[in-house]
């Protein structure tokens, strides 16, 4: 039998939707803005319907067309006139819009037909039926209601308590953004019941913010500015201080949050009124002032508790706990005051903002559906099939910040709505009635590819599948006559860990000219003033995944010691700005932030710039690599490849000899010829099929590490579930990593795997033991100090016998410090001086 699983907190001020699955509850986030809460607010802007945050923006300015708090009118005959449409909406219709919008929070593949919706404890039968009707209007075929205090209690009991401790009487104190409720709950024989309740629909966090503005901020502001009329004019619509009022409300909300953590909060803003110079205002308000301010309001809520006690003949000692929910109960004073005044333990362990939705989902997780499921199970399908056809017309590229999109629907069913949204969350057309032809100005993000999707909904708000619904508009970067880069443009940087240099991409192939980018690099070694050592900024054209020596040099700036005003210290920053014009002229500006020196160079694409010292080093590095590869292929008895490599080695040695005779002052073309020959040899070497490019080697390392981790994960059964889960997340969040040709991404992923492996050794006793046995098996030559290592290995043996995991770990750490660096035997490269 299937359970409902989905729960909605349909609140007066905010609403949320959550799902129960396998013992856990997930609160869904709004795909626009990524907040869990949706303001229960609907705005009618022309023919557009907007629900949530955007609608709330117009509450003050367009009150006739914006509706909120309609939950209070559920079950009444009240109708709201929508002037822009000249039609009426009932509270049910408006609530249905909020519910429909919440439905959009759920990933498309799920779409439930049954739902649990929470209602206040005070709702009568008519109000309950009205809520059910709203649910049905929103497209839910089965609606089950649950009282809010019960939902909050369920969240608390399911996440925090065992059954044995829950029997008895409880209070649920709910002080939210705009409303206050208190409910008396009893739990007896597995049954949870609201016995009585009280509340005030006009008390919440918003009122506290306003009190901060009027009673704490304005008196100080009057003092500082000498403006005696501020308090009378501050909240006057279109008045001189209107803008300031909104800013102060935001500042008050921030200060309120700050005072929940610290003893003081800073109020800082710019005081601007027309005709006067702006001035910066700064002062502090203290927690003591704030607590004194809200004390009467909190005492007012306490009076409701007393009423409940009196009416039900209950003494405080009979109450097991007061469960606090609602955002305003985060304030420490509220918690303290309620606990001290009532003498009842307060419990604020449930998340005050989401508790009702979470409780509704728990309830839904145990509630059996009476309707057959209509879930769309196919993950590739995001909407139900339809005959609707769509043709869209728009400019794919533009320099404007908005673009007009027109669309033609064929076979459009009646009463459909549509919506256009940008993938990054920055644009939403709102819900609009669909006609055969629609048109919309869509706002664009500057210098980016803007991806939009047109979604079509039937009258039950179920999405209908339509073809060609995706729109891509490129803003700014592209002009119709723009040229693309034929190859990657890279900068050569040091990879000291691997004793090599690598090509870091600056502009990827097919980027549109002109291009400009500023990057910051740290110096990988100190360059002394007056020395012959130099910092080399080497700009390359070619393929980012191959070794720099196989790419073409298109510009070099060599800054040597004699050009420095002081030593250039290891770790200091170099700011490099690279610009490529449409005619492919390259300009490089390097600023040494430590010495505050700037070096500019414009490279004409017709000229070549060669650094002789760089050329010599590259040839030496190439020779070393070829030698290493020859050894490797001979180990595999591949004599054919070894012979080919020997031929390349001979050419390389000849080039090294030639390069040693080059002088900077030489006027002939030899250095250009040698550079070209070096590049050819390097390309031959990297294309020989050894698969030893830096990228390939990194991929090989990742594969080996992953294989090793997979093996140990299968072999060791004492690995905790959370660590296994962490590994799964690590792999799931990097599904395409092996397709990457970006050295930095691969290196980053390898580091993550390496870190995860260390975590395994640190946390899994059997793995630590295995690792120690491995260390025991190493030859004496693997350690820098053989005697010290031997002593540590003996101590480790004893710790292992005592099964003292912590001691063994501490000893292993000391042994690691004694291990020889594998690369100490290899000739260290000098590199460019730029860190990667």
């Amino acid at each position, binding site marked *: 039998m299937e359970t409902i699983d989905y729960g909605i907190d349909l609140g007066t001020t905010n609403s949320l939707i959550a799902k129960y699955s396998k013992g856990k509850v997930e609160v869904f986030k709004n795909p*626009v*803005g*990524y907040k869990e809460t949706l303001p229960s607010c609907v*705005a009618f*802007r022309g023919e*557009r319907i*907007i629900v949530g*945050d*955007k609608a709330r*923006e*117009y509450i*003050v*300015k*367009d009150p006739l067309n914006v509706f909120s708090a309609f939950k209070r009118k559920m079950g009444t005959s009240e109708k709201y006139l929508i002037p822009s449409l000249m039609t009426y909406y009932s509270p049910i219709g408006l609530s249905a819009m909020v519910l429909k919008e919440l439905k959009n929070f759920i990933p498309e593949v799920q779409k439930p037909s049954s739902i649990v919706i929470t209602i206040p404890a005070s709702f009568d039968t008519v109000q309950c039926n009205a809520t059910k009707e709203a649910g049905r209007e929103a497209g839910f075929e089965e609606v089950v209601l649950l009282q809010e205090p019960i939902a909050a209690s369920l969240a608390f009991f399911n996440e925090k308590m065992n059954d044995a401790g829950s029997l008895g009487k409880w209070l649920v104190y709910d002080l939210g953004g705009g409303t206050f409720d208190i409910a008396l709950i009893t739990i007896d024989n597995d049954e949870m019941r609201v016995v009585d309740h009280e509340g005030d629909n006009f008390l919440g966090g918003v009122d506290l913010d306003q009190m901060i503005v009027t009673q704490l901020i304005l008196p100080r502001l009057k003092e500082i500015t000498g403006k005696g009329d501020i308090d009378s004019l501050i909240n006057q619509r*279109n008045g001189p201080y*209107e*803008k300031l009022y*909104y*800013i102060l409300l*935001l500042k008050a909300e921030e200060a309120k949050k700050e005072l929940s953590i610290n003893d003081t909060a800073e109020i800082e803003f710019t005081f601007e009124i027309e005709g006067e110079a702006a001035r910066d205002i700064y002062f502090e308000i203290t927690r003591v002032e704030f607590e004194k301010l809200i004390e009467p309001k909190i005492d007012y809520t306490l009076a409701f508790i007393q009423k409940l006690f009196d009416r039900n003949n209950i003494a405080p000692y009979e109450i097991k706990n007061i469960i606090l929910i609602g955002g305003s109960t985060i304030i420490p004073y509220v918690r303290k005051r309620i606990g001290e005044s009532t003498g009842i333990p307060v419990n604020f362990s449930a998340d005050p903002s989401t508790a009702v939705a979470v409780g509704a989902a728990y309830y839904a997780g145990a509630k059996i559906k009476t309707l057959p499921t209509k879930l769309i199970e196919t993950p590739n399908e995001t909407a139900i099939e339809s005959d609707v056809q769509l043709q869209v017309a728009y400019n794919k590229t533009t320099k404007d*910040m*908005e673009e007009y999109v027109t669309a033609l629907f064929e076979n459009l069913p009646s009463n459909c709505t549509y919506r256009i*949204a*940008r*993938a*990054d*969350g*920055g*644009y*939403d*057309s*709102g819900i609009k009635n669909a006609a055969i032809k629609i048109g919309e*100005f*869509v*706002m664009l*993000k500057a210098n*980016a590819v803007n991806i939009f999707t047109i979604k079509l909904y039937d009258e039950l708000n179920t999405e209908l599948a339509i073809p060609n619904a995706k729109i891509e508009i490129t803003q700014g970067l592209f002009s119709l006559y723009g040229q693309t880069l034929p190859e990657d443009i890279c900068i050569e940087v040091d990879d000291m860990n691997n004793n090599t240099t690598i090509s870091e991409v600056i502009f990827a192939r097919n980027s549109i000219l002109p291009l400009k980018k*500023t*990057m*910051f690099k740290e110096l990988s070694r100190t360059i002394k003033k007056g020395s012959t050592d130099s910092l080399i900024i080497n700009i390359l054209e070619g393929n980012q995944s191959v070794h720099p020596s196989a790419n073409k040099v298109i510009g070099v700036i060599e800054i040597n010691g004699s050009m420095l005003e002081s030593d250039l210290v290891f770790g200091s*920053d170099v*700011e490099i700005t690279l610009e490529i014009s449409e005619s492919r002229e390259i300009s490089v500006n390097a*600023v040494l*932030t430590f010495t*505050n020196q700037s070096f500019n160079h414009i490279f004409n694409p017709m000229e070549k710039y060669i650094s002789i010292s760089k050329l010599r080093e590259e040839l030496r590095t190439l020779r070393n690599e070829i030698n290493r590869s020859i050894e490797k292929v001979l180990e595999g008895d591949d004599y054919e490849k070894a012979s080919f490599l020997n031929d390349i080695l001979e050419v390389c040695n000849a080039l090294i000899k030639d390069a040693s005779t080059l002088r900077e002052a030489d006027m002939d073309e030899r250095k250009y010829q040698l550079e070209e020959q070096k590049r050819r040899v390097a390309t031959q070497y990297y294309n020989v099929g050894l698969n030893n490019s830096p990228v390939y080697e990194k991929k090989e390392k990742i594969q080996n590490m992953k294989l090793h981790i997979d093996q140990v994960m299968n072999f060791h059964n004492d690995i905790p579930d959370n660590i296994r889960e962490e590994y799964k997340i690590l792999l799931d969040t990097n599904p395409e990593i092996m397709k990457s040709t970006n050295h930095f991404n691969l290196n980053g992923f390898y580091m993550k795997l390496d870190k995860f492996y260390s975590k395994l050794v640190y946390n899994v006793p059997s793995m630590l033991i295995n690792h120690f046995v491995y260390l025991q098996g190493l030859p004496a030559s693997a350690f820098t100090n053989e005697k010290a290592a031997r002593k540590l290995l003996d101590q480790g043996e004893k710790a292992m016998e005592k099964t003292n995991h912590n001691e063994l770990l501490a000893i292993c750490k000391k042994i690691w410090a004694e291990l020889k660096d594998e690369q100490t035997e290899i000739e260290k490269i000098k590199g460019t001086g730029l860190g990667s």
Partner: protein
Amino acid sequence: MKETLTIMNQFALLELKLGAEKDESIQRIIQRIKSVWEGMGLVYQLPIGEKYTDTRTDVMANIVGEMGHDMTITQIVKPIIYQNNVIVQQGIVMVEAKKK
């Protein structure tokens, strides 16, 4: 993440305040810090002076004065923050009709 966003918010406001500051070294430090965040996929945007309509969901607006067709963002309380090209924080802005 919350702490990073808080730092970015404060830093963006600092950049706004230093808007008229011509000192190159200060601008360089600002760009340096922004490039570190960029490396983490985090970018903030200050939409000051940009056009505002109710379809802009990258900001939450407080509308000051009379509404009009030509609404502009005149003040920023919090910047828009993107992580890997997706909005993780909507901006908070003041919006006013263009003065004629």
